[in-house]
């Protein structure tokens, strides 16, 4: 995020005149709406907002937002964004990428943007499939995924985007999913974080990977399968109405997380831990929690800012420039010089 003078806009102001070309029912529509609904709440200025994307279904996103937008090439959006931000740090950059764009062909750039801590929001739409190229398995596809290029099922182990982000040194990691009513809150938190804010958004590709996330995203029984994290609050899930309230506790022996039953709402007695967004160790455990035995960790998992890359670069540049001559003629005349006159050359 940037320190901005709030501007009053409405959702309509953020809709471009371009026809949206995603498949009917695609999860991208819901994410687009969530973003367009969030931007007015942030007081964002369309003129100072830039959406930068790579290639893939998700990367068409900038065309549909009435702001500045740059649809770049496959995987390279983080590098383009870095140049934009260093050239004009006042711009508020939203980087939109996918699991193929950001984790496969552009994994290297994603890593370096995160470790440098460029101040921007990275929205990685994870649908666990290559959509625009017609359904091949992606680096986040689960083992055994059948696709045109893996007719017998994929054999490689999937990447976990949030674990990757933490490993790369990200200081903000969050998760949400396309149709979640909580997505705007997550986006707001990402924007409020000064530095690279990484948000994985599970997105339903209704054509090539339909309802892949229903196991935790389907409304029915959602409270038992979703752990919505809130800073300072106990990690509770399940319904206390049905008597199935559970929580996440720390197994101090094994240094792992475990699911515990909460009886009569007494989470403290059950050893449920309180979410601290600055606890990097717990964050690592939360993003790696296997779904099934555990619920899916959602919301802001980690948020602990440190100085941003552009502040460091531009601060150093400013200091290096202090008191230096900007006389180009003097610069050209530096080095091993001599003067030629009528009497010949001399030092």
């Amino acid at each position, binding site marked *: 995020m940037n320190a901005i003078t709030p501007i009053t806009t409405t959702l309509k102001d953020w809709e*471009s005149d*371009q026809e949206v070309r995603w498949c009917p029912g695609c999860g991208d529509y819901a994410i687009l709406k969530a973003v367009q609904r969030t931007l007015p709440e942030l007081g964002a200025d369309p*003129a*100072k907002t*830039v959406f*930068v994307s790579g290639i893939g279904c998700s990367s068409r996103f*900038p*065309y549909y937002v*009435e*702001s*500045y*937008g*740059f*649809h*770049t*090439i496959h995987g*390279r959006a*983080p*590098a*383009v*964004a*870095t*140049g*934009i*931000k*260093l*050239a*004009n740090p*006042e*711009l508020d950059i939203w980087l939109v990428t996918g699991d193929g764009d950001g984790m496969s062909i552009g994994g*290297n*750039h994603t*890593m*370096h943007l995160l470790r440098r801590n460029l101040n921007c929001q990275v929205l990685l739409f994870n649908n666990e499939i290559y959509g625009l190229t017609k359904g091949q398995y992606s680096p986040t596809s689960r083992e055994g995924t059948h696709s045109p290029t893996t007719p017998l099922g994929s054999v490689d182990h999937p990447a976990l985007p949030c674990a990757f982000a933490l490993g790369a040194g990200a200081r903000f990691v969050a998760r949400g999913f396309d149709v979640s009513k909580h997505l705007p809150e997550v986006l707001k938190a990402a924007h409020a974080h000064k530095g690279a804010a990484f948000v994985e958004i599970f997105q339903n590709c209704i054509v090539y990977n339909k309802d892949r996330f229903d196991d935790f995203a389907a409304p029915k029984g959602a409270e038992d399968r979703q752990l919505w994290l809130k800073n300072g609050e106990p990690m509770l899930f399940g319904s206390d109405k049905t008597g199935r309230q559970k929580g996440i506790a720390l197994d101090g022996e094994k240094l792992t997380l475990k699911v515990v039953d909460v009886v009569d709402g007494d989470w403290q007695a059950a050893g449920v831990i309180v979410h601290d967004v600055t606890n990097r160790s717990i964050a690592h455990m939360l993003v790696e929690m296997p779904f099934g035995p555990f619920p899916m960790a959602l919301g802001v998992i980690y948020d602990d800012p440190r100085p941003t890359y552009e502040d460091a*670069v*531009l601060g150093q*540049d400013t200091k*290096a*420039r202090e008191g*230096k*001559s*900007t006389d*180009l*003629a003097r*610069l*050209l*005349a*530096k*080095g*091993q*010089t*001599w*003067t*030629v*006159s*009528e009497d*010949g*050359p*001399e*030092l």
Partner: protein
Amino acid sequence: MATQTAEPEGLTKNSPEAVVVRFAGDSGDGMQLTGGQFTLSSALAGNDFATFPDFPAEIRAPQGTLFGVSAFQINFGSTEIDTAGDAPDVLVAMNPAALKTNVGALKPGGLIIADTGEFTKRNLEKAKYEVSPLEDGSLSKWQVLAFDISALTVEAVKPFGLGNKDALRCKNMWTLGLALWMFDRDRAPLVDWLNNKFRKNPVLAEANIAALNAGHAYGETAELGGQLHKQHLDAVPAPAGLYRTITGAEAVALGLVAGANLAHLPMFFGGYPITPASSILHYLVGLKEFGVTTFQAEDEIAAIASAIGASYAGQLGVTSSSGPGIALKTEAMGLAVMTELPLVIVNSQRGGPSTGLPTKTEQSDLYQAVYGRNGDTPMPVIAARSPSDAFDCAIEACRIATQYMTPVILLTDGYIANAAEPWKVPDPASYEAFPVSFLEERNGPDGTLLPYARDEKGARPWIKPGTPGLTHRIGGIEKNPGTGNLDYSPAAHQAMTDARHAKVNGVAKSIPAQEVTLGNAGGKLAVVGWGSTYGPIHQAVRRARAKGLDVSHIHVRHIWPLPENLGDLLRGYERILVPEMNTGQFKTVLRDQFLVDAKPYNKVSGQPFTIAEIEAAIEGALA
């Protein structure tokens, strides 16, 4: 190099037009420093010169080994000098390894100066000599002046009480003193330089000065013995003014700074370490006060992509690399063509393909520059001919990039990057500025915005994000000719392809007409060159013309688009010869564009052409 006398005369007669000296020693012997100071002394003597350093690819090569040899060659003369010289007249060999790796290049009858103090059994073994070459007669086709420079140096600096190691470090100054005597040079500027360099350690200053003086005095002794003769090369008349030595890498960096300045823009340089292009980044990081931001990216792709991002945001994006890195940047060049953003891409060419010869020179990336992208993706290409020319070429690249809203490739090569030559320091005010303006208001009918509307040059407006009221989207996808909105329609692709082509072709209208570099417009033979072959071609044509041959030199700076009159000019010659350090790439471009019968003359050894080679090719072409 300039007209070396046709028959090798060694150093027995006075005042040849030009002399080539190569200083070679172990990496730790200070040969680059010696060469640099000898260069300054040549400048102060009023000689024209060109130099070329040849340092080992290994970072810390073991002492005394063949691959640890560092050399510095200078060609200086009383006439115009364009190359670092074909074959050395004098080889200073500080150890057996330096002799072994360099003596093959020495001109027959040339002079070897060797330090016998380093020709120990151990050093001979390291250089793979079974017997000392100084004693077995294997150097008989050269003159040999071998004596114990090490001992003489230690003796000369004895009064200053240095340890043996520090005393031996003064050897290079002793050698320099001898070289100064040989070419009748003034020692005073070197004494000043040493006093300044060692101002914090006056004892070292005095020791080095004593070594310099001792070397100089030794010349007199050797002359008495009949082995050496003092020579004097007259000054070349040069226009009055301030001069400096400049390498190609420095010139590119300074030219980019000057170009951005003339465009009234800050510059963003995205780079990734690669030989021999890194030196441009090394130089630019020290120039932040000139509005330069440098970014060492995670890879070549990020280097160019970040530069494109900076250009999009309103700075002049620049990136630089060598062949393999340029290959990686290719897709992003397409993005810059498609989004029509200014960008300068510097390619310091090296031997290829793949990793090839990283430290050697070649011109084999011309196809890559002109034709090497997917789609119909035209980009202007400019090639520098020498270190000092690289300054003007870099400015020209910035001009075209910003005035035409296009990426531009600037080709240099490993030779230009590392070679140094004298440069008359230009007055920046003498260059015409080309200030950039950004679109501030909607430019279409009825208050609409047309990011892809075109001016009379075919260039679209540059719109900085952050400008109120001009929000729009661009990308690598085909677009509507006016609005820039996504548009795959047949008509849109045809119109946009044509528009991109017409724009780049139109650059030809803003470049100078091709001139004959040396000789006549029309005749029996034109030798057409580009890039760093300028020096040897120019001197070879000069020599051939002096012999009465009907040959002219045409040096082409603008490779794409080519000057509009070039085809007609070439058709005025009976024959066309194109010497290139590749297998005939520019030859193909000339045939392609003008249907002329351009004949190739090629060399891909990683070494520059010698003048003699091109002279022979000229004679062959006219036979």
